[in-house]
């Protein structure tokens, strides 16, 4: 850490959350060095560039925004979102398409972003947990359901569960609790808090349909 970075640490106002601080750092200088570590072999690839292979500088559509980003050919969407675009709400759990923590929507379909090549979604719309709430801060109904029912314990798996639910509801807007359980069966919770999670997500599906309770 440079002297300037250390200085900045002491200047952090109390109101800045740890999460926002980390995101700020990722967007700034430290992000560059993180990415340089993760993608350290990238220069090797561009050195061997052949006709027909993909270009590294691409445009992505994420949460309705157009983002220009330098992406290695072998880079996964989860890595791009987290380490290049600072969208750390998408979590990396297993990195093997088993846990679901990295679930995002690609053209409204839930996908494991740890197992999607970023280059394969160039022409598609990506939505992450950061893109769910309205610009004025109004939560998405599924998020609201989670808040109302206090659905998660540690919540590491939460953004994945919420994205899987939002995607499922686009095709199945009125699921029973059992159907919704099937819909989010590609997501794991290590706290084993499934009952409460399902209650919260199902409440979210009701809120999305405008169902209110007394």
């Amino acid at each position: 850490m440079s002297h300037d970075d250390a200085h900045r640490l002491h200047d952090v106002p109390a109101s800045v959350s740890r999460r926002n601080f980390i995101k700020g750092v990722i967007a700034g200088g430290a992000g560059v060095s993180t990415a340089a570590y993760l993608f350290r072999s990238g220069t090797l690839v561009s050195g061997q560039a052949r006709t027909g292979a993909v270009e590294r500088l691409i445009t992505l559509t994420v949460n309705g925004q157009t983002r220009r980003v330098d992406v290695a050919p072998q880079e996964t969407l989860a890595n791009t979102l987290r380490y290049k675009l600072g969208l750390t709400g998408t979590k990396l759990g297993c990195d093997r398409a088993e846990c679901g923590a990295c679930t995002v929507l690609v053209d409204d379909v839930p996908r494991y972003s740890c197992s999607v090549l970023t280059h394969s979604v160039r022409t598609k719309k990506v939505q992450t947990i950061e893109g769910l709430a309205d610009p004025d801060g109004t939560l998405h109904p599924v998020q609201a359901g989670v808040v109302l029912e206090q659905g998660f314990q540690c919540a590491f798996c939460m953004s994945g569960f919420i994205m899987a639910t939002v995607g499922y509801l686009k095709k199945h807007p009125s699921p029973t609790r059992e159907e919704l359980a099937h819909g989010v069966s590609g997501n794991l919770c290590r706290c084993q808090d499934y009952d409460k999670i399902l209650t919260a997500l199902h409440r979210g599906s009701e809120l999305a349909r405008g169902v209110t309770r007394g």
Partner: protein
Amino acid sequence: MAIVHDVMPPFQLFQPSSADEALDLLDARPDTWVLAGGMDSFDWLKDRTKRTSAVVDLSGIDALRGIREVDGGLEIGAMTTLVDVAEHAAVNARFKMLAEAAGLVASPQIRNQGTIGGNVSQDARCWYYRRGWSCYRAGGSTCYADTPTAVNREHAILGADRCVAVSPSDTAPALVALDAQMVLRRRGSERVVDAADFFLGPDIDITRLTVREPGELLTAIRVPATFAGARHYFEKVRDRQVWDFPLVNVAAAFKESGGTIQEARVVVGAVAAKPLRLRTVEAQLAGKPATEDTAKAAGELAIAGAQALRFNAYKIPLMRNLVRRAVRGGPLAATT
């Protein structure tokens, strides 16, 4: 496997928009890794168990996706996702077992991305092999899963030959049972292979599970009308009701008339390196009434010659019972 939280080793990525472009590339560089949904590929590459310098990503080739009517049957593009197969109206109406098999693969997110071509082309799940041990299948001279101390609960009970890995696919047994055909293209030529001949046991080739050669692409799967509307049965037994590969699965079709079985197809997966078509069982079933006695006899015949390893003896009664249940019919037990 130790989890490495790092990106995959570098490779060149090619994203053709037509099958011809992909075939040109494979012709020039036959060692290019073919990427369909990637659900099997990424594990190999992330774990560094297999490496490649170039990948051809088929996801941008629209012509390889979709389900078309062909001569009363269906032609399914190899890049059609499993969810699209599982939810397709004509597949459900005429080839119910295939819809069910596709719908029971892994998890929703994997079915949203995984393709039917990838599902039948995926590599073995033997965990010694996947961990990178230099076993027969990896080109070595030992099977680590078939030793007195090996952990081999998921391994083969039939057709083992040095290697005891099993076919991991759910759609493969259904396609074999439906007399499907696999369309394999290379630059300038095409061959059509019966699904039953598409899959290989270790006695034929110990290092691969299908006949697809380097430079070839599986472009489509044709399901003929032969068993459209017959009585179909598919059942998958696994440890968890989501994500897991089959411990044993069974796909069967019966043409019946007045309670008598005229023609049967019975195929069992995850018991051998390829989906096992039980021809002796099928022959025995022809002309028999679909009764409990017939079901029991079919189950006993199915497991003839089965040999257990140290930890997989349970698969023998499991296979027997699944064949019985297939003949018996009725609602499925292991659906999620």
